């Protein structure tokens, strides 16, 4: 427990000091929600929609924090620790790799939750947002999306053979996810061809669930998408524990 606490604290300090995680994970989504609010105010999502664009967007904007921490933060941190030989040093200490993965999950999730808190806070205080759907179900969906995204991140870290490769893989996965999954540009306004491409991205399914639940649908509406995310998460984590390496 002492180990976990100290490693967690150290990791949080590293993330804050490094700052790019704070920028992409917290400041960017906060900026985006402000922009959306200022531009669209309480306009409906589309003509004749029963909900506003703000109501539709909040859930999606929250995933930017999850993505930035899970698909950039985690893999790049882990592979740089491997390249710096920190993992090699920990290999011959009493700490297990499981603890390391847990610390990565917890510390990055703290940043993501912080980001979500600010986004929701601004949406509620400044733009009178209130969630129509069940907050508990939304929380479950949020955790599910986080879990699958972070597992994918850990997998990238396990599979890449250097920090450079990890960076490349992160960019290859992060940027399409960032633009196409519906986190920044609403999925609904994409042309059909692009929609098909976007559907392959796991987070697209995650955002569908989050958006749907936040707008009042029950989580039970999205069984297949939820199972898919859970499945991706479990597979990725199993492969990454199996292929975990301390050293290149």
């Amino acid at each position: 427990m002492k180990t976990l606490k100290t490693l967690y604290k150290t990791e949080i300090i590293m993330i804050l000091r490094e700052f790019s995680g704070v920028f992409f994970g917290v400041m960017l989504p906060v900026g985006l929600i402000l922009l959306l609010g200022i531009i669209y105010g309480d306009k409906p999502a589309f003509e004749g929609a029963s909900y506003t664009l703000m109501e539709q967007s909040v859930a999606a904007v929250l995933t930017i924090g999850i993505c930035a921490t899970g698909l950039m933060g985690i893999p790049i941190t882990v592979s740089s620790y491997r390249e710096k030989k920190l993992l090699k040093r920990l290999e011959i200490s009493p700490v297990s790799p499981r603890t390391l993965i847990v610390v990565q999950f917890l510390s990055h999730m703290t940043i993501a939750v912080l980001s979500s808190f600010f986004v929701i806070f601004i949406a509620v205080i400044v733009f009178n947002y209130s969630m129509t759907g069940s907050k508990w179900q939304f929380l479950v969906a949020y955790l599910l999306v986080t879990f699958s995204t972070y597992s994918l991140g850990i997998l990238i870290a396990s599979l890449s053979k250097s920090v450079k490769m990890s960076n490349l893989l992160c960019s290859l996965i992060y940027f399409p996810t960032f633009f196409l999954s519906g986190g920044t540009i609403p999925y609904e306004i994409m042309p059909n061809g692009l929609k098909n491409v976007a559907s392959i991205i796991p987070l697209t399914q995650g955002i569908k669930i989050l958006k749907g639940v936040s707008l009042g649908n029950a989580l039970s509406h999205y069984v297949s998408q939820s199972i898919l995310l859970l499945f991706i998460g479990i597979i990725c984590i199993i492969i990454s524990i199996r292929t975990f390496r301390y050293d290149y």
Partner: protein
Amino acid sequence: MKTILKVEALNKWYKNLHAVNHLNLHVVEGQIFGMIGPNGAGKTTSIECILGMKSCDYESIELLNQPIKRLRKTSKRHKMLFSQIGVQFQNNFYPDLIKVNEMCKMMSSLYEDVYDWKELLVQFKIESKQNTLVSQLSGGQRQRLSVLLALINKPKLVFLDELTTGLDPQVRREVWMLLKKLNQKGLTIFLTSHFMDEVEYLCDEIVILNNGIVCEQGSPQEIVSKLNANNLETAYLSLIEEENKNENFKNTI
């Protein structure tokens, strides 16, 4: 006298290179044991094999009387064993933006029984650098921190790989004194070094490794007198020269 490290018939291959060739070691509790040899002789590889960090062949390896064969990395036995062992590698292992005190706290948190790191910083004369980023330390300061961190868990056996590389003569001596003191309190030390004066001063027993093969073993005095040299440095140089000549001869025929 109790054995603390026993290695029998350790072999390590890197593709076609026989990096460690039938290595046998026997380190007694309370000893300062030195492994010397040219760059690429297989010193670091030997340590990594002994600690189970590299796959290799061996008849038996016993660390603190525990066989490491089939020792699972997640097992309780592994945890117990490695909480009593300290290691300093040649490579630094510091995250980019970590400060000295954060690094000390982090390494302390991995173990149950630890020294007070603030006291160690004083002993290693880097207490004024507590709040400095590790990346901003001078080479010598960072090296001292590495040795310090290898000792933080009150190990029974510590591996120090090129422990004083990059230190100025004065600090080098201070580190020696400190190690001698810890050794007198019962710490067994396994070190590698390129400084023969260091090895001569510190070590009770040494092995000389060349191309993965042990070519000489004994106390520094024994080796010096056996090779009819003035000191360990001349003994070592003549031995390695001789070895390489033989190697070249073998290669030509």
